């Protein structure tokens, strides 16, 4: 009987050997979390998020021999997932759509209680309302912890654009997350 608990090294070696069982173990370990990240980029479009996840894991297994053991395996997989998601969004259209027009009025920070009542699917619905470019920038900053300089380099935009788009996206989300008066 096969064991179900493996260390990273066993998993990496198994995947390089094309051991399908080990590959499945790796997939099951990370699929849910990575799917959440894909949903963040796809903006609630489940079909698109599933395409991202599938393509990313195929890349993970194909290039497992390039994992050098520096940093966590999860971090390495996450990087592939993120880059794949951005590539797929870019392929959909060459231009990154950004938020146009005036910056919305400033809203007060939402309380912890209010936030805790918001379901993941609701935040994904709101994220999906952001233009694609702003959505990517928001995810890279909030989810991945990138600086605006790094975002600018990755998306080939200026740091100023990244900063202003992030700020606009944040304000819009706060506006949408505010509980209605009624």
């Amino acid at each position: 009987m096969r064991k179900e608990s493996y260390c990273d090294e066993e998993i990496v070696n198994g995947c390089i050997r094309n051991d399908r069982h080990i590959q499945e173990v790796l997939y099951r370990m990370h699929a849910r979390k990575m799917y959440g990240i894909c949903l963040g980029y796809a903006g609630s479009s489940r079909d698109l998020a599933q395409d991202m996840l599938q393509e990313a894991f195929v890349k993970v297994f194909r290039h497992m021999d390039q994992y050098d053991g520096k940093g966590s395996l999860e971090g390495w997989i996450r990087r592939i997932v993120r880059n794949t998601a951005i590539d797929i969004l870019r392929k959909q259209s060459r231009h990154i759509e950004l938020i146009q027009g005036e910056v919305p009025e400033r809203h007060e920070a939402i309380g912890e209680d209010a936030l805790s009542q918001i379901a993941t699917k609701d935040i994904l619905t709101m994220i999906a309302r952001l233009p694609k470019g702003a959505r990517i920038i928001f995810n890279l900053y909030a989810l991945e912890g990138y600086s605006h300089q790094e975002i600018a380099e990755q998306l080939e935009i200026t740091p100023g654009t990244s900063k202003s788009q992030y700020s606009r996206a944040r304000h819009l989300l706060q506006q949408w997350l505010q509980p209605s008066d009624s």
Partner: protein
Amino acid sequence: MKLEKWYKYKIESNTEDPPEKVWEEVQNALDIDLVWQRVDLELQPAAKKVSRTWIAVAASLLLLMAALGTLWYQAGILRKPGKEDAVTAVERPAIQRLPAITGQQQPLITASQPFLPITHRLKQRLLYKDKNTAMGLPEDSPAGLTIPAMQPMTGAVALSAMPDFFTAADSQMNDYPIDHDARLISENALDDIRSHEAMGQQGTYFGLSMQFANTWLRNEKTAAGLQNTSLVDTRPSFGKSFGVVVGQQLSKKVDLKLGLNIISEKSQAYNEYLHGQFVSTRIDMNYTKLVLTASYRFGPHSPHRAVAGLYAAYLVDASQFVDGMDENVTRDYSKTDFGLVAGYEYVHQLGGRVQLGTGVYANYGLQNVFAGNDQLPAYLNRTNLLSLHAGIVLGYAFRQ
């Protein structure tokens, strides 16, 4: 709680599992990889054949480089006196009077008349003007050439320094004294002068080039598209090139040229059935190209030239247009390409130092430019760039 923190927590603590079909699709893709690996193993003998082809190409390139090097070396010898020419290129006596020669006599040629430099390899072609008949030499011997006045030469040289010549003509010379007008003439030396003159006029030149090309991305699909029975219809495709050329005349018949095509477009259009529809597909590739060619003149002053050489190209970008939708496919293609060039040129002298070259050239890419993608590995879609160019070069020659 900060919005970013809350968002990150919500996303990373996602409780929704992806559907099972995602893992099934991942497995399918991995299975297909295994099939490719097996196909690859089966194709290894073919790969060995390809490697032999590469060895042949590399050998050809070495041969070409050696030939060019030899030409360059020879051109250097013609331009400046070398070690071998030391005896002859220095002030060399021309024949003023050749006394009657006896069998034991060491003939001595004294000179104050202008004379040509002579190299050892030319000794056997030394001729006496107008003395063929008198000396009993064949009438068709290359003789009677006149030469323009050259630098005066002084001194003397013993004919024994030219043993080859006397081996052939010794007996006749002993019987027939040579008169005062006798001149040693080298036919090749005369050619050398003309070559020097030509090089003086056109040693190095610079030009602007423009080409229009019928291009072909030759792979299994586009090749099949030329057949009537195929569902793919390969269409003629064209591209243009602009650049600069620098040339150096190596000898009276051979030039070496280096061209930089800043823009070199390659294109391929075809119609194919895709998802039940007959759609138009076009691939556009923009290269920057370096072309090194040697051109051979059919005569010292002939405007006709044969051209052969090599090119190396760098891919700037590539786009694919399928049924009106465009996609950047630069990643699917190799950043570099190299190949062979052959062609024909006709050079018009426009007057002064300006010349206009027109020509047709065939380019044959030796490299598989398809780098592969997630759907198709590179070796299953071998693609070579072929093109037929018509071009003009407007050149300006610098005097050496």
